[in-house]
Each structure stands twice: as structure tokens, then as C-alpha cells.
């Protein structure tokens, strides 16, 4: 069984999503809220492809025999770039002072899609950090609401430390403790949720610049050329 991804044949096993089949074939579809370890969430829409002319999220749409999928067309990459620009202006992303820089999927995806500017006006929101935990720091300024930490904590760690709260533009990440502080949860630095964040929100303390900028994951090769 196979389908066409940008004109190239991609095999799949029935039940696989377009994203899973593409990953197995070593093909890159831009994505942020998807990770092969977790159930798809389908919220960031970065993985939007055109399936026989109709838009769909590659991480949630099942692969079908003979379907024709557009992925890296100029039309789709333009839309993806706009989504990225909205993510950048909605939070506070000052990469030069971010410990995640060079290892960050948002940044790497923006490089891949040649995002040269944020384009929109910045929100500059006020989002205080939570440094209460002895080993972990939460910098909410960079949260893209992908819910990977929510899924990792709930489904892998069995702890439910994180949740999204609020609606629409008011949606934000919260910590499930009476005080709202990470120190008052049972979160441990060894939890899957502690290392799952694709951006620089959930950070190990005292690790920041152990690997120098310039020697990091996406300094070596673009995200599209790395295993997903």
C-alpha cells in the first residue's frame, strides 16, 4: 500500500497517519505539536498538507491507498510561515537569551521555512516565570500550547502535572497544584515531561549553556534533514 507525497511514493501500513508513514520513510513534514511517542493532538496545524486538493493535518489524517499529498509546496509553506509568525509574536521569543536556542523546534522550523521576520505586531505579553522547583525552570513566555508536556505527564509519567486553561487567545499553560507552583507537584527532573518541551519552557536548571551555541542540534543540520 502506498500514496504519493510531493510526487514520491511512500509506503504505509493501514492505520498509519500520513505523518507516521512519512516519518517511517524518512520524509519531513513540518510539525510542532506532534511527537511519535504520543497520541496526535492536531492543534498547531503546522503539518497541514493537501490531500487530493483538500487541507488536512498530516498528524491526524489516515493514509489511504493512492492518495496524492502535497507537502512542501510554496502555498503550504507560506501558510506554515504565517502560523509560525503568529506563534512568535504571541509569546516572548528572544532567542539570543534563550537556553533552548539551537535545540528548539519552533526556531528550527522557522529557519527551515525561511522566516525572516515576525511580520505581525508583537503582543509582548506579561508571563512571569516559575523558578520554584529545585531542578526545573518554567518560562511560560515561550509556550506554544502544544500540550506535549500535558500528554507526557499524563500518559507516560502518570502524574498530570500540566494542563491548558482558558479559551481562545486567553489559553495558557497551568500547573496542577493548589498553589499553581511547580515545586508543589510531584514532578521530577527524570520525568518524560521534563524533557519533552519542543521550545524553551520546561528547562533543566544549571544546564543552560553546557553545549555552546553553534554546536547544538539544529546548528549541525536543518530540521528537515534530521530523524523526527
Amino acid at each position, binding site marked *: 500500500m502506498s500514496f504519493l507525497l510531493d510526487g514520491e511514493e511512500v509506503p504505509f501500513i493501514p492505520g498509519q497517519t500520513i505523518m507516521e508513514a512519512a516519518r517511517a520513510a524518512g520524509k519531513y513534514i513540518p510539525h510542532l505539536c506532534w511527537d511519535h511517542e504520543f497520541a496526535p493532538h492536531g492543534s498547531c496545524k503546522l503539518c497541514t498538507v493537501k490531500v487530493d486538493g483538500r487541507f488536512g493535518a498530516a498528524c491526524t489524517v489516515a493514509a489511504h491507498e493512492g492518495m496524492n499529498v502535497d507537502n512542501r509546496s510554496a502555498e503550504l509553506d507560506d501558510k506554515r510561515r504565517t502560523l509560525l509568525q503568529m506563534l*512568535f509574536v504571541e509569546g*516572548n*521569543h*528572544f*532567542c*539570543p*537569551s*534563550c537556553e533552548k*536556542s*539551537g535545540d528548539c523546534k519552533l*526556531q528550527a522550523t*522557522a*529557519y527551515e521555512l*525561511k522566516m*525572516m*521576520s*515576525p*511580520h505581525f*505586531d*508583537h503582543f*509582548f*505579553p*506579561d*508571563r512571569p516565570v516559575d523558578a520554584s522547583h529545585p531542578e526545573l525552570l518554567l518560562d511560560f513566555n515561550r509556550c506554544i500550547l502544544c500540550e506535549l508536556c500535558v500528554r507526557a505527564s499524563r500518559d507516560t509519567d502518570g502524574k498530570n502535572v500540566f494542563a491548558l486553561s482558558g479559551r481562545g487567545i486567553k489559553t495558557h499553560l497551568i500547573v496542577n497544584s493548589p498553589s499553581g507552583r511547580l515545586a508543589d507537584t510531584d514532578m521530577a527532573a527524570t520525568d518524560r515531561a521534563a524533557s519533552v518541551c519542543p521550545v524553551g519552557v520546561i528547562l533543566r536548571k544549571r544546564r543552560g549553556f553546557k553545549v555552546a*551555541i553553534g554546536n547544538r542540534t539544529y*546548528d549541525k*543540520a*536543518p530540521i528537515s534533514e534530521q530523524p523526527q
Partner: protein
Amino acid sequence: MKSKVKIATTSLAGCFGCHMSLLDIDLRLLDLVQLVDFDRSPINDIKRVGACDVGLIEGGVCNAENIEILRDYRKHCKILVAVGACAVNGGLPAQRNHLDLRDILEEVYQTSPGLAPGSAIPNDPELPLPLNKVHPIHEIVRVDYFVPGCPPPADALWKFLTDLIAGRTPVLGHGLLHYD
């Protein structure tokens, strides 16, 4: 002979790091001056910007004078380029944006420990008025190109300028496009 490309540069709310990075193209500066003439720029002493082909803007917009200079550059430059993180997204100076301006000024000039008695917020009429928020330059004027980086690597500036001067659409590939 083909006339040289005229370039003006300035630093608004920046740290001159982007200009240092431009100087970092080292010996290629000698090639560059074969291709371009510099109009107003911190590297010479020209006081007012004239008609130019390219304006390179370092730094974001944090006060009234920045706005005036930026608009002047926009008016005189055919192509305006945001160079570096601060021009592109406000950068480090914009990290004050979630704070109240008066609170900042009071803390820095009046209430922080160690200040001389009677210290006050400076209000000399020659000082440009600070804006409530620091803005990337594209929020004030139309910008034609962006070269991100803190600072952009010398090689990125070289690639950008040589593409532009040769009439190609500037493209920064892997390793040259950086936000940090």
C-alpha cells in the same frame, strides 16, 4: 563605469554589535568599498542621510529620536533593511516591554540603593523622550528585507550585501539564518 551602490547605516536602540559584525567581514571590506559608497553611518562623520540605495538599520525603536531617524532613512533609502535581532523583533531592549516605563525610570534613577541623595529621573530637554514600549522597526515603517541574528554573522551580512548588490534576491542558507 557602473556607479557605486550608496549605503547608509545607523544604530537605533541597538548595541553596535551589528556594525561590529559588518566590520568583521575583515579583508572583504576592501572588496566592499569597491562596490559601495557609504552615506551617513557611524563609520564616518556624515550628519544627515542623503538619497541612498540601501539603508541598514540596527536596533529597534525605543524613543522619539529613533522614530525620526528611522522615518528619515525610510524616506531617503530605496531599500530599507532591518539588521539584527533588535531591529527585527525589538531584541534585548524590548525585554522591558512588560514593565511600566515610569516604574523602570523610578527604580533606576530614584529608588535603587546606592544613588546619591536627591537623584531624579533626568529630564533635560535634549534627551529624546522614551516610548512606552520598544518596537521592531517594521512596526513603524515599511521594511524591505530582514537579516536576523544577534548579531547576524559577518558571513550572513556579506552574503546578503553581495546578493543585493548583484541584483539577486538575498538568500541566507543553513548556518547563516540565525535568531541567536
